[in-house]
């Protein structure tokens, strides 16, 4: 899902850059207030862990294998602010050292995965945790985080006139709905393994909820900004009925 250089036009690159800077800035501000000094190296080492864990290939089908993306995993283990910083570091290194994702698309990639994916995943996880156990909450959150990143990615590409939204959305959603299943399962397995070994790492006290809410607001702005212009292009229920029954031409504009 790493967007390369040349896929986004200037306005999309700028808009996503602003959103990413806002999200990461907010996370840094929050982390500076609440992070204990001994947790500072933990951010970097967890980022390195996400990188290393991406090397483990989970067999999906005889020829297809999947690997961890790590957004929800980091969010559960580090809290929302720490996870945004750790995943931003991962994406920056992937961009500059491994040329995975373009420099001009770095803002978009950070916003889609490190900000929107992490925060959505964290929100879903906390919500699901009220009724469900660790494994199921993490699995559902992992799926949601992957799909929300894919939707944003599709919307940004459509904004840049790469392809029509009607082609991009089903294609991206379809693939990532399946990838999300693997991501959810892997996240759940890893978290259960950690909880068995060191339960205190997973069952952390709740962080201040309003900081997560502020980050959630950034994500909501991004969704409204990129996705809503396309959402209303879709025929709504009534228009669709009118089209199929053939009385749409009777509508008075």
């Amino acid at each position, binding site marked *: 899902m790493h967007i*390369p250089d040349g896929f986004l036009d200037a306005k999309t690159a700028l808009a996503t850059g602003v959103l990413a800077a806002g999200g990461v800035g907010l996370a840094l501000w929050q982390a500076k207030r609440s992070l204990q000094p001994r947790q500072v190296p*933990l951010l970097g080492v967890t980022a390195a862990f996400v990188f290393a864990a991406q090397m483990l290939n989970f067999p999906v089908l005889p020829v297809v294998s999947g690997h961890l993306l790590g957004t929800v995993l980091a969010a559960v283990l580090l809290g929302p602010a720490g996870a945004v910083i750790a995943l931003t570091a991962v994406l*920056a290194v992937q961009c500059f050292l491994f040329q995975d994702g373009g420099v001009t698309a770095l803002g978009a990639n950070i916003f889609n995965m490190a900000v929107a994916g992490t925060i959505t995943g964290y929100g879903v996880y906390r919500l699901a945790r009220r009724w469900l156990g660790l494994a199921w909450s993490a699995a559902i959150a992992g799926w949601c985080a992957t799909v929300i990143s894919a939707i944003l990615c599709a919307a940004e590409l459509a904004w840049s006139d790469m392809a029509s939204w009607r082609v991009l959305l089903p294609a991206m959603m379809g693939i990532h709905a399946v990838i999300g299943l693997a991501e959810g399962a892997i996240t759940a397995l*890893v978290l259960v393994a950690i909880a068995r070994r060191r339960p205190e790492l997973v069952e952390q006290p709740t962080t201040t909820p309003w900081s997560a809410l502020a980050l959630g607001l950034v994500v909501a702005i991004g969704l409204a900004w990129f996705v809503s212009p396309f959402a209303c292009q879709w025929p709504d229920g009534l228009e669709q009925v009118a089209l199929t029954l053939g009385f749409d031409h009777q509508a008075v504009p």
Partner: protein
Amino acid sequence: MMSAPAKIILALGVVLLTVAAPPGTWWYFTILTMVLVLATLAMRVRFMATRWLWFVPLLLLPGGGWLVWKGALCVTTMMLLANTTPFTEILRLTRRAGVPALLVSTVALLYRYLSVLVDETQRMQRARQARTFRPRSRRERWQMLGALAGELFVRSTERAERIYTAMCARGWR
């Protein structure tokens, strides 16, 4: 030999120009391609070529040719930068450009401990293979890999605690 800041600014400038150049400006793309090919010849060409292959499926898109050309030029530019500039120099420049210290130190620690953790992953996998433990089903294989990743994280946190102690011992903050 160019200085690191000059190289970084030049590379970013080339990427920006390439992305902004409208499709059809033949002279710009031809000259840049020739320059980059000459520069690439001095490096490991096969390693670069595998990265260009990623762009091949995009040729099927309408107008994909220009997109692929742009993408490949940008990737090559960044590859040349990454393979000729110490990463610590890039970090120092980002710090000087005003990126917050917490983010830069996170990236620096990620870079420093990446190879350590990759080695650790390989060591754990080798240890398991040496004990001829083989999962019977896909379900067991997933559980085994999940446990491996979990153990890797626990070891990572313990490493982070040791790093913090070492940082304090060396007068950090």
